């Protein structure tokens, strides 16, 4: 559940327990202990960021564990969004207009 609704309970779940639940829920496995440790670190950062987003949000949004919680923002952007072009058409992976000048 979201961070807000998380029942503080006597002993909040350990990060690793939450991460294990995440792996089970979204069927994630990692190839070696280093990758596991790296993803656990990214997961922890994303949870911390979710807490900040929830504090900053002016609406009623709830943030927390999602299917993308083990991805860095860069990985997520590559997979689901794209490079940003300030003020120009959304890049969504391609420069606006033609590369060669004069192309029709």
């Amino acid at each position, binding site marked *: *559940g979201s961070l807000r609704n998380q029942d503080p309970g006597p002993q909040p779940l350990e990060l690793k327990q939450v991460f294990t639940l995440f792996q089970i829920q979204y069927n994630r496995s990692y190839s070696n202990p280093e990758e596991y440790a790296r993803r656990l670190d990214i997961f922890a950062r994303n949870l911390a960021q979710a807490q900040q987003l929830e504090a900053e949000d*002016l*609406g009623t949004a709830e943030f927390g564990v999602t299917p993308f919680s083990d991805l860095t923002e860069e990985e997520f952007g590559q997979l*689901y969004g794209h490079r*940003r072009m*300030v003020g120009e058409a959304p890049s969504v992976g391609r420069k606006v207009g033609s590369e060669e000048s004069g192309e029709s």
Partner: protein
Amino acid sequence: MPPRCDWRKLKGVISPIKRQENCNCCWAMAVAGNVEALWGIRYNRSVQVSVQELLDCGRCGDGCRGGFVWDAFITVLNNSGLASEQDYPFRGNSKPHKCLAKNYKKVAWIQDFIMLEDNEQRIAWYLATQGPITVTINMKLLQQYQKGVIKATPATCDPQLVDHSVLLVGFGKRKSVAGRWAEAGSSQPHPRNPIPYWILKNSWGAEWGEKGYFRLHRGSNTCGITKYPLTARVDLPAKKRPVSCP
């Protein structure tokens, strides 16, 4: 204008939530959803159109590397419509494929497409009276989003940096909430007025967000929602009486 609108409530208009897999095709899925919805509303016929045709038959032909909704609408026009998802299914991987549009019967087509003005009132009116609209937003807050209405500021979600296309399917108002501010005792007044919101269909699977949907605050151009509101038109242009401007 009705106080709320939700095209998901009308059978055969909004197709099931799609999932992009390993393909940057949010723009194609948003357009496919737009055409499906308008076709369902106008002709009372539920169709599921081919996203793969939009990816293979676009001007650059490698749609999994990204694209623009206006390119997708042009592809629909250039190919005289879209094949069904069943005939020309989505492959979900990023290898480009040859355009096979000519091989299949078209199940839906469009007359043209338009971009609406960057005004949330006008967008809501058009949504309520004509049907769903594709919009392109800044997706920065969506990675960790679980549920509820996102209300951001330009500082937390720059409305100029839009990089993800989705389908606008409805709007409503959420009862006012005591809000986290009251609990946190911060200086912010907790909202007395109900919170107006947009309902948006994403393409990241149904396990993300509110069963694949999410809500953004309506009325503050949250995350740049008014920057590129585009929609197809499937109706033959009604004969308009000529008017003379004095």
